[in-house]
């Protein structure tokens, strides 16, 4: 009886160290991340760029499906913090840093690859896709000179 049930698209469950969302209309983000691209979406109607990627433009009606754009080049580290305690499921990553990278038009929230007293807000960063154990995928910000 369950034969004709369409298979669920759970690709997003593989995002990050531990996933909390399995299904979203922007699941293609995961395929792009696996191909090494960190992508946001762009509205074909008004041209706004969105990160995190979203399926719907809040300003346009009937503009058609969102387009993808790749996050490229240098952003600036807006701020970060280094965790010494972690929520359940992240303990093995400690210590790690979460950060915001500012690309002007848009910003990204994610992990910072390196941290220490020399890493300050304003420092240039690039964003790269990373592969985690068990087929999981994520992205991180890399401070200038730490590639």
């Amino acid at each position: 009886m369950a034969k004709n049930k369409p298979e669920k698209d759970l690709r997003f469950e593989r995002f990050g160290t531990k996933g909390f969302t399995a299904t979203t209309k922007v699941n293609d983000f995961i395929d792009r991340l696996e191909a090494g691209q960190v992508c946001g979406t762009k509205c074909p109607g008004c041209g706004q760029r969105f990160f995190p990627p979203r399926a719907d433009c809040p300003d346009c009606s009937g503009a058609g499906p969102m387009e993808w754009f790749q996050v490229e080049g240098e952003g600036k580290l807006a701020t970060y913090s280094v965790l010494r305690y972690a929520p359940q499921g992240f303990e093995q990553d400690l210590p790690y840093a979460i950060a915001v990278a500012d690309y002007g038009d848009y910003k990204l929230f994610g992990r910072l690859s390196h941290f220490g007293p020399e890493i300050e807000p304003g420092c240039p960063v690039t964003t790269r896709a990373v592969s985690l154990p068990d087929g999981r995928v994520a992205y991180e910000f890399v401070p200038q000179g730490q590639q």
Partner: protein
Amino acid sequence: MGRVAIIGVGQSAFVRGYPGSIKELAFEAFREAMDDAGLQRGDIQGSLICSAPEYDRQRSPAGVIAEYCGLNPQPTAYVESLCCSSTTGVRMAYGMITGGLHDCMMVLGFQKMSEITSAETQERMGRGADIQWESPFGTMMPAYYAMFARGFLHRYGASEEDLARIRVKAATYGQINEKAVYRKPVSLEQCMIADPVADPLKVFDCCANADGSSALILASEEKVRELGIEKPVWLMGLGSASAPVNLALRDEFSGFDVARQAASQAYGMAGVGPKDIDVAEVHDCFTIAEMMAYENLGFAEPGGGPELIRAKETYKDGSIPVNVDGGLLSKGHPIGATGGSQVRTIVLQLRGEAGAMQVKDPAVGLVHNVGGVGLYANVLVMGR
């Protein structure tokens, strides 16, 4: 539009591991507020029950709490906006009273954080963000506030000692508040050598979790007169705003625009400015939160917060006393009860009934209550 007053306030002691159910916890504040106002339960025409549901085992807590307090068959409903749930309850009750639906309402906030195990708490902490785009990176509340602390310290050249001074002040008053969960003094040195939680925040930069409840009774001007309430405290201004959850969609990491907007609305409605505030309760879930509040509420110029605390201007005898009940840092932060407890402190201050914590003859008070990491903010201005 008629005026609305707070005519009764109550609060349980804020404790670790409350030895009773959520109904019994909520009842403690309810009973105190009813006695304070001198009302019978039939006088309450409706109730709003406020908490953060991730800590509750009980589904739809409004039902069991209204039942236990004897508030059937009057309408009741549940209100949630994280750590500012109970001031959102005040805002809703204000609207229902001025809209003419009721002329006397109960806003009951509670949180029994020990209701769930610490493993469950750990699990829920990770979901306190945008679960799609932030939680997979391993986030929690102290780390978010630490990002603002780094942003603030970097932007204004302030130091971690400046943040620690806020904790020292909180502990000064936590010692004299018999309902506070943390009653011990804290020195600057203790703050500075404490273990890091999320750099640059350390253990004493973080508030004390607690179980607790708060209750506020709101009434229309007509009802205040009818009941012959001697010391009503009037809600003069109410402001509220929201911001994106995901920090990628914020513009600033050294303050909360959501609080600036709520403050501006509340000041405008009350016809007062920051200089007119005689006593304030601000949302100090972390030391950095109080530091940012100084500027966001207009008590200091941008970047002037560190000087304000260094000069002890926010102590009881300073120019703008802030959190002289110990604040969330020492009094404790039972999420759903916090806003109501802040309002209670200001009501007692304005009535001149704050005991050892009393500020000299205040006429206008302010409450600043933030939900999430500057996700929701409520600001209330109150007067005699």
